[in-house]
């Protein structure tokens, strides 16, 4: 069978300044719900009510999704580092220092970090 050509989208299709849809607004709301359950040090400083465009939504979505993964990765690290045996356990909250200093994340994750540029 012949290879079928798939037309590429127009270059004009990209519009990060497009106003956010109700779907993205919902996604932001859900992530905000999740963010509130994160320890303070993982939370963003983004004011979600001021998000108007897809680029702004993307920046927030990225921050919270990374923070959720980071919080779980840090917890797994602490779990692995915890000494085994009787009396050797430390409370989880004291096991390791927070990864974030001065509002910036210290790269410890094995995951490749991707940045979101705002236009």
């Amino acid at each position, binding site marked *: 069978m012949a290879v079928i050509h798939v037309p590429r*989208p127009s270059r004009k299709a990209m519009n990060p300044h497009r106003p956010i849809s109700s779907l993205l607004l919902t996604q932001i709301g859900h992530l905000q719900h999740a963010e509130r359950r994160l320890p303070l040090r993982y939370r963003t400083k983004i004011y979600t009510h001021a998000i108007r465009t897809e*680029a702004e939504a993307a920046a927030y979505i990225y921050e919270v999704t990374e923070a959720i993964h980071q919080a779980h990765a840090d917890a797994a690290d602490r779990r692995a580092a915890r000494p085994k045996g009787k009396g050797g356990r430390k409370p989880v909250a004291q096991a390791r220092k927070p990864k974030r200093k001065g509002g910036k994340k210290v790269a410890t994750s094995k995951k490749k970090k991707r940045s979101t540029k705002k236009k």
Partner: protein
Amino acid sequence: MPTGLDKLQHIVVLMMENRSFDHMLGSLQVVDNRIDGVTDQLRNPDTTGAEVKPQPLAEFQGQLNPDPDHHFPAVDLQIFGGNTAPGRQPNMQGFVKSYFNQRGDVKHSQKIMYYFQQQDLPVLTTLALEFAVFNRWFASIPGPTICNRAFAHYGTSFGRVDMSPFDILEPYKSIYTRLVNATPKRTAKVYYYDTTSSTMEVVNLLQNQPELFGTYEQFLRDCDQGILPDYSFIEPNYNDHETDGGEQLANDQHPDHDVQAGELFIAEVYMRIKRNPKLWASTALLIVYDEHGGIYDHVVPPACPPDNFTASANNTGTGMEFKFDRLGVRVPAILVSPWISKGTVVNRVFDHASIPGTVTKFFLGDYAARSPRELNADVFIEPPSSPRADCNLLSLDSMRTDCPEFDV
């Protein structure tokens, strides 16, 4: 037992956004009259009383702005034509009226009837004609995205008909939890596009089981290495954004995102599986849309057995409670596998509860703790031991070698 079923090891579901069957695949009626698409007889009244016909004038972007309303009250109007009397019957006569409500522009409201020509969508229409297309796959709820996607993950929306976060109520578990907790252990993953697009299944799974998630980039690698999990659920890119890798165009096809970007994405997923011969022989790929997005479809959604939940009149916004006893509007759905006969048209009724229903039945067998809706939903792949094995779509004795390829 059919050879394809014996070889099947992976089920992959790609769920796109907000397009109806008639809008995307309705043009195929003239190519194959077994496909229940658009005909000359179809009409919808506008607010002046004039009859509006479906027309093949859909555009890739810029036409459905504002985003057509697809929340519960709007879909009620679309399905029942504005009739709220007791004993009312669905007639699919309220789509133009519903769209008019958003902009008050009669001419613009008629665009909700537009559909794509076959040549506009070479990927979706080719796959529909080459593999199995479902004439009766409906959204699970006549409502928006989140509650419909919940049915794909949990087999229920836990009583929600809206977009708010929901709580998981025992005993129902996500299909992913069921699989990874099984003995013997099964594997499952939700591949979201990237962390900047993330998932629409945020509050529950991502918060509690982030290990279930991977990116689309990982999906591509897993395909190449032949290490896809038993069950994969792929989410498209939900927003336009930039990364270090360049511009990332939203490819979910949600209005007003570019439809061609979605075509390209579907082709990439298909080709990545196909390029690994072992994976291609052992994978079934379902391409399906979460809901119709307020866009016209002519098939009346059927009634169905109720769920264990009731949405109150206040929550539905219609003044009437909803017992989850009617499906949502019809959406495009295509099952792809080299073990499916070319030109298969399926007329049985499915909805998104069929997804966890099928995956559970195929990989886990009997599993009681499921919602009434899921237990009643038909399955699109019968396990080899099923007495209904003759319903199987992967029915060929030898693998096809004539499957299409795309230049992606």
